[in-house]
């Protein structure tokens, strides 16, 4: 009777360990990474060549982190999430920088055109 009870308990633990190892994986917090990727996408990073490269790195990093987490590599997955997050942040910054560069160029052109239209001397860049 005791052997049967021990055997049953051991089988239960074994099943729980199996289920845990195969279906659940490591739980990681992807919020910061996904949020950073969303911000980058909304800033138009996908349309800026330089920024779109790092946005792609961020997406791939996020996928790698998910895979590592699924494999139970929680620490490595979290480390990979950091990479994805900084890639997304860089993509967003490059996108904004591109926009700012265009706006600055347009503003300078407006000044130059205003000077030309009014026959005022133009200054060099």
């Amino acid at each position, binding site marked *: 009777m005791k052997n049967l009870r021990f055997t049953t308990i051991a089988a239960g633990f074994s099943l729980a360990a199996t289920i845990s190892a195969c279906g659940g994986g490591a739980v990681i917090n992807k919020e910061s990474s996904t949020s950073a990727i969303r911000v980058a996408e909304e800033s138009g990073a996908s349309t800026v060549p330089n920024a779109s490269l*790092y946005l792609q790195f961020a997406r791939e990093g996020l996928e790698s982190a998910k895979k590592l987490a699924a494999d139970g590599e929680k*620490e*490595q997955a979290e*480390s*990979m999430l*950091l*990479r994805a997050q*900084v*890639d997304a*942040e*860089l993509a967003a*910054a*490059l996108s*904004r*920088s591109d926009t*700012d*560069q265009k*706006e*600055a160029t347009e*503003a*300078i052109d*407006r*000044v130059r055109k*205003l*000077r030309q239209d*009014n026959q*005022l001397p133009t200054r060099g860049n």
Partner: protein
Amino acid sequence: MKTYPIIAIACAGLLMACASVPPAELVSARRSYAQASNGQANRLVPAEVHKAFTALSLAEESFKNDPDSYKTRDLAYVADRKAMLAEALAVTVNERAATVQADKDYQTVQTQIMKSTKDELAAAERSAVVQSDKLAAEQGARVDAEAKAADARTEAARVKDSTDAHARMVKATSDAEAFRVKGLADAEARRMAAQKVRDDETILRLEKGKKVVLTGVTFQTNKATLTGDSEPILSRAYNALVANPDAQIEISGHTDNVGDDAYNQSLSLERAQTVKNWLVRKGIASQRMKTVGKGENEPVGSNTTTEGRASNRRIEFYVE
């Protein structure tokens, strides 16, 4: 036994050599940080550069402790990206500053243009005022000149009218005087003519229904040509006609009976006509006189004597 320490040292050396080679992520991170810290990022976004430094320090520490670990590579990767992020943010700050400066320049230029335009407008307005004043002055001068010209024309017309009137008056006066003088002269002439007629009246008196013989009017033989002795009596006949302007005269020629009757008839008519012509030349109207040739048909003397035939050769006036 002696080979084991050597192998161990070699392995340790090899391990140390391998451990001293930094991963590519760390190399890249060092380079990126160096660029960020030496460039405009250190001035414009020092906090971001500091974050990159912190991340790089963590990566370096991890590299010391665990060179080949994924953790070292990931920390170096993060440090690399943070350094790049600092660079990108520096560019953003720089571009935004450029935009702000350009906007300020735009406003400055606009202000400059507005001021310039305002100055130009003010100058144009001043010029327009000056021009307007000048035009007004010219207009005033023109109006004055036109008024003066009109006055001058009026004065000239007045003077001309006055002159014309004066001339007309002078002419009228002159005409009146001439008329008066002429009237006086005519009156005197008439008076003298009347006097002369009166003087000659005893010689040639014209009475209606009576015949007057112009004694003394003679012609060359067998011709209708007057002799020089005929002029005085013809002149008296002329005066009589002038003194009696209403008198109508029949001038008749007469001959003696010498010669052919028809010839005498023709000759008497020619002689009557010669007398009429003489009077017409003196100014007596032709229509007051008609001529007729009587030939030898109405003798007043005897044709048998010289005196009788001389009296028969005559010119008579008959007052109708």
